[in-house]
């Protein structure tokens, strides 16, 4: 018995000791290398992106990858203050992060905003009461993503193609209300697709319902890639090059067309988490990400390619990787992607203005159930 008790106690002790070692923050274990933590979408902490920064500042970046803004918010909210230094989030969630008081105000002077194209210098989703809360990292356009075997580019010039007979049960939708209702709103010709009065909002929901019989399923990020790749779905509204660009690299016959009714813009930005203990390092990191080198890494991200907002970034991309610059239409001479914005064909994806977020969400749940 005493033997048994001894071994039990010993077991417990070593277990606790092991637990204690595991529970010790890595910071204590490795004094010289600093750590910068990051809450981010997939792919942004790949070694080819952050490697140069890590080496230059003798820092190790530890990233927590998320796949939905709501999970990200919950993770930040319920973790101890200071857990996450840098947050990469969609503009809609930057606004939620700001309202929930989860991000630090930034100093305009720390970042080279002069180098940004004019439309991105005072980006609406990043400024609150004249304070800056996020730095614009990259963006892309959302239109109609389609399989070219099923839907030609010219057919895709009109969102109404989704209602065609041959696309019955072949339309997929990204499982989030904003891009989908936003697209419906564009189809309805609303000049500000997220700023709708009651009648216009009702009209958007009614139009959406007519599309419902064409819809095969509702997909997350990974599901969207698989469904478009396998041909499970032939068209998806509110999706962009961040999906089809990746699939093209893999040899898929897919494309994103911005129909004549216009497209939406998604935007992801970097913020500093409230209570971060590494604010100096976080600031340096954001500066690195909008430096030409960081911008090129971002534009050619393995997880999803996207356009970047800085002139120097465009210049370096055109120099290093002219093919990708051309593919994404980031040409410094002649026509380029920015012309779409300047021509008023692109509207920002944003939170609903006149309705609450939850009423759009409710409508979406109802729509999926219809």
């Amino acid at each position: 018995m005493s033997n048994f008790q001894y071994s039990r106690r010993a077991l417990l002790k070593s277990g606790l000791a092991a637990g204690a070692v595991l529970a010790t923050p890595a910071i204590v274990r490795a004094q010289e290398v600093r750590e910068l933590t990051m809450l981010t979408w997939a792919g942004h902490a790949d070694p080819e992106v952050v490697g140069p920064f890590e080496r230059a500042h003798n820092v190790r970046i530890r990233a927590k990858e998320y796949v939905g803004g709501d999970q990200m918010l919950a993770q930040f909210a319920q973790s101890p203050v200071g857990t996450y230094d840098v947050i990469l989030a969609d503009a809609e969630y930057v606004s939620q992060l700001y309202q929930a008081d989860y991000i630090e105000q930034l100093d305009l002077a720390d970042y080279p905003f002069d180098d940004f194209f004019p439309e991105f210098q005072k980006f609406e989703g990043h400024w609150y009461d004249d304070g800056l809360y996020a730095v614009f990292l990259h963006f892309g356009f959302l239109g109609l993503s389609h399989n070219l075997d099923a839907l030609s580019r010219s057919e895709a010039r009109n969102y109404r193609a989704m209602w065609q007979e041959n696309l019955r049960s072949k339309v997929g939708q990204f499982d989030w209300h904003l891009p989908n209702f936003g697209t419906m709103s564009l189809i309805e010709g609303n000049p500000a697709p997220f700023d709708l009065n009651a009648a216009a909002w009702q009209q958007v929901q009614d139009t959406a319902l007519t599309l419902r019989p064409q819809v095969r399923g509702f997909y997350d990020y990974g599901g969207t890639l698989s469904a478009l790749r396998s041909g499970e779905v032939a068209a998806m509204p509110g999706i962009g090059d961040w999906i089809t660009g990746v699939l093209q690299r893999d040899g898929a016959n897919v494309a994103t067309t911005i129909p004549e009714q216009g497209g939406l813009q998604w935007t992801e930005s970097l913020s500093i988490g409230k209570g971060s203990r590494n604010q100096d390092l976080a600031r340096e990191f954001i500066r690195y990400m909008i430096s030409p080198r960081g911008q090129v890494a971002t534009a050619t991200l393995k997880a999803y390619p996207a356009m970047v907002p800085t002139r120097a970034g465009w210049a370096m991309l055109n120099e290093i990787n002219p093919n990708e610059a051309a593919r994404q239409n980031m040409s410094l001479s002649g026509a380029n992607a920015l012309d779409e914005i300047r021509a008023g064909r692109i509207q920002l994806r944003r939170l609903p203005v006149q309705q609450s977020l939850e009423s759009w969400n409710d409508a979406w749940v109802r729509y999926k159930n219809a």
Partner: protein
Amino acid sequence: MSVLSAKVRLRRRAWFALWAAPLPIWFALFFMGPMLLLIAMSFWSVQNYRLTPDFSLSAWSYVLSLDFLWSTFWRSYGLSLISAALVSLLAFPASYAMAFLITPARRLTFLGLALAPFFTSYLVRIYSLQVFLGEGGVLPQLFHSVGLSGASLLNSYTALFLGHATLTLPVVLVLQTLALGNVDRTEMSAAVNLGARPQHVLRHIILPAARPGLSLGVLFAFLLSYAEFVSATYLGGGVFQTLPILLTDLIRGGQQWPRAAVVSLLMMAALMLTSLVTVAWAYRQKGN
């Protein structure tokens, strides 16, 4: 004397506590804590996307007044009940073979092989099933070659069912095989010797005797399918609105965790009620 007996009693108590206390303590700390927080959270409010401790009934009244709540509830309940029944039927011949037609030593190997996939990443297995069911996948091509439609089977109940089966078959197989293995063989032999037909033995001796295990199999298949989320998303394509899907959908209305907590509590209540009824029925005295 009394000092001694008090000492002995104390030692006995300590001995008893050594065994009886650890699990309740661990669960009180690390399970009841979160559970109570979950219950409390259903009364919290959300202000500026921030979960705020409060005593508000708004999440409850919101969820309970959703017009599609009960249709979702019953769809969820019905789909998992059907899956549980089908999986049990699917597993029964296999369990029967393992219990009666295979030697006990082999039976262990088969049970082990039946359990092995259960502990291989479920996510991986569901993702792999897409290749069998999706556009141009194994099954559609097979169907096409025999002159059937050859359309993708994803986002159908068939796909969802296969997902549920992937999740629950191992447990059901093990429970059924154990139940059948414990059926009193002397009673079976006696019935056969008295001239009972094999069908009669199956219906009147084997099935009643194995009832507890068979019912537990249905129950576990139901519990697991009911809370299932991954198949519903990746094989069902999100077109079957079940409670776990509704739960994640609600959160997206701007950090509405209190509402998700309400749905969770409803789900738990339904599961516990079902479990109690099933267990009571499974262990009901014979002859009723």
